[in-house]
């Protein structure tokens, strides 16, 4: 189906079903119950799941396949956001031209940066990409303020030209991004008993794009081109000796993954028409590295899982505070309750980064293949040792 093998097609369909029904799946607890804070089924967070999923899928095409660890990928995310917001300011509030321009712009920048950075490999490549991203961040923050809005970020204004549509909506406000009239922020709510499910236009728009992006990624993974990228990772010298120049392939992978990042940036700007330089800061680049490794670099589904896991932790874990912990452990004797709360407290709320760091370290140390490898190991344990010969659904990174 779609030119995919059966295994890949079923993976794609599985992901499609999960994203379509995400508003249900992510909202398993009834509204107002004690566990409702674990619900992730609200539009803002779901949008972030899929957008960062796209970002991580793109990063994985570079890192997972070629092994080149870019520490400056957020730069392309920022460029995509800026390009999209400029399109909203100048042309119209339709998201399609914004996304197209963002992808083209980030592709161009990726071509330039990739052309220079890919002359070196290993740690030097990481430092070069980091240096470029930091340079762009510093410039966007200071000198390029007329283009980037500097510290306040790039925002829409009422007196923007918007030559293809009205500068302001009928009620005199700044119009919102839309797809041929469907506003991105529109939602319908469905109430079933105590449960409330929200279906958001922006989320479904992002999901469709993510599915397309995921499909393209599968095709790249299974193509001769993808094979060539894997060859770059496993042994570049051998590739040279067979008379092949690896650089065009790695450069193509770099540009593709930069365009994925630009796409993600454009979607971020489409959901909330605002772009700031902090999106390009190197910690943002570090975040996508975390996502990809956590999920499993070099696997198809890993980066999406990693992006989901980190964004879920960021939003849900960071909301838990001491009081909530006390109510959870209220059934214990007082002294024990206080003791347990004191132990858990540093890891939640504002301290969620600590949990993230520890999980990340454990994954790198014990599970270099990420969550996907973990899942495979568990499956193998369950099936018994005979399943060892059966190579699992996705191949872990080397």
């Amino acid at each position, binding site marked *: 189906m779609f030119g995919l093998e059966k295994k890949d097609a079923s993976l794609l369909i599985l992901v499609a079903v999960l994203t379509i029904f995400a508003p249900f799946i992510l909202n398993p607890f009834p509204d107002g119950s004690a566990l409702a804070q674990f619900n992730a089924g609200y539009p803002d967070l779901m949008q972030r799941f899929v957008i960062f999923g796209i970002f991580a899928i793109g990063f994985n095409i570079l890192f997972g396949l070629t092994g080149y660890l870019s520490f400056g990928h957020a730069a392309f995310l920022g460029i995509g956001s800026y390009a999209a917001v400029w399109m909203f300011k100048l042309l119209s509030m339709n998201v399609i031209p914004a996304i197209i321009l963002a992808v083209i712009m980030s592709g161009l920048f990726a071509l330039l940066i990739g052309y220079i950075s890919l002359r070196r490999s290993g740690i030097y490549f990481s*430092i070069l990409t980091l240096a*470029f991203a930091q340079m762009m961040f*510093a410039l966007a923050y*200071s000198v390029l303020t007329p283009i980037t809005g500097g510290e306040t970020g790039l925002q829409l204004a009422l007196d923007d030209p918007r030559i293809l549509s009205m500068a302001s909506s009928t009620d005199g406000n700044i119009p919102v991004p839309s797809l041929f009239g469907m506003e991105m922020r529109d939602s319908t709510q469905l109430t079933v008993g105590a449960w409330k499910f929200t279906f958001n236009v922006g989320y479904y728009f992002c999901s469709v794009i993510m599915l397309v992006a995921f499909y393209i990624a599968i095709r790249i993974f299974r193509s001769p081109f993808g094979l060539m990228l894997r060859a770059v990772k496993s042994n570049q010298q051998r590739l040279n000796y067979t008379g092949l120049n690896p650089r065009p392939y790695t450069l193509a992978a770099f540009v593709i993954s930069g365009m994925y990042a630009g796409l993600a940036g454009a979607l971020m700007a489409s959901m909330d028409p605002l772009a700031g330089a902090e999106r390009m800061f190197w910690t943002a680049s570090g975040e996508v590295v975390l996502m990809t*490794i956590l999920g499993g670099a070099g696997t198809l589904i890993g980066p999406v899982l990693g992006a989901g896991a980190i964004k879920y932790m960021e939003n849900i874990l960071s909301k838990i505070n001491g009081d909530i912990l006390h109510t959870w452990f209220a059934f214990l004797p007082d002294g024990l309750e206080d003791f347990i709360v004191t132990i858990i407290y540093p890891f939640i709320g504002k301290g969620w*980064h600590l949990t993230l760091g520890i999980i*990340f370290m454990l994954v790198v140390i014990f599970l270099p293949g990420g969550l996907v490898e973990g899942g495979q190991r568990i499956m193998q344990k369950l099936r018994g040792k005979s399943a060892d010969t059966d190579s699992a659904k996705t191949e872990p990174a080397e």
Partner: protein
Amino acid sequence: MDALILQILNGLDKGSAYALIALGLTLIFGTLGVVNFAHGALFMIGAFCAVTLNRILTLSHTVIDETRTDFLGKPLQVDVPYVYDIFGESAGNAIIDWSVPLAILFAIPVMIAVGVIMERGLIKHFYKRPHADQILVTFGLAIVLQEIIKYFYGANPIPTPAPEAFKGSFDFGTMIGFDPNIIIYPYWRLVYFCFAVVIIGAVFAFLQFTTFGMVVRAGMADRETVGLLGINIDRRFTIMFGLAAAVAGLAGVMYVPINPPNYHMGMDFLVLSFVVVVVGGMGSLPGAVLAGFLLGILESFASMREVIDFIPGINQVIIYLVAIIILLTRPRGLMGRKGVMED
């Protein structure tokens, strides 16, 4: 001319910090072959050693001072640091005043312990793994370390002053024959520079003139042969890791009065220090020091008004720009050795 000297002086203190951190990074890379992304966190921990010592010294208990009264006419309650009880008031005051330099003594054992624990507990297991894995695990460790510091000390910068004697500035220009009030330089920055020079000199002397240092240098050149000679090179390299951690920590301790420490200062310095190491040449100790000072001074030259007017924004990007040019034209760095991490 005077502006030139002023900019060189301004670049020295930042350059010293870069040089010290880059020196530690290179020590670790040269001995153990590990790319340590947690090195910035070690710098930060050093800075918080100074904060901790300051807090310990100013630990107080409340006493009621019968001789003085507050505005209601009751006897005044005053906080008396325990140090006063032990050393008397004037000596106690001096100790608190000098808490930052004293923190050097406090930080050395702490940092060596942290470094050795890190190496034995975690990094030891990553020698055989690819560089990308080393970067990732130390990056994770850096996050964990800075979050732990954030948990105990909060997210805000903690100002910790330099000793009274070194507060303020002096007129450097008059000493070398310029008119007064042209070249004004803060005392502490000069102290920092001298301190950095002493530390760097000590590290080089240690490597050059002691038997231990000789063995370590031999190990850097050819680890296997040194091992075959019956020398436990692993243990020496562990100690070198502790030493590198101590160098980073001391750089942090003394940097506290220049810039109040917060939990992410290490990360801010780390990125630049990596650039410094790469410019200096991976694995070259003199290269790291040279590049550290060079980039620090370049950065301060680029922030001169005349230069900014000429090329806007150059002060923000100069270091990265230099790094990119160096990496592309001279991949081995300024003083890199042949065959060390060339790809």
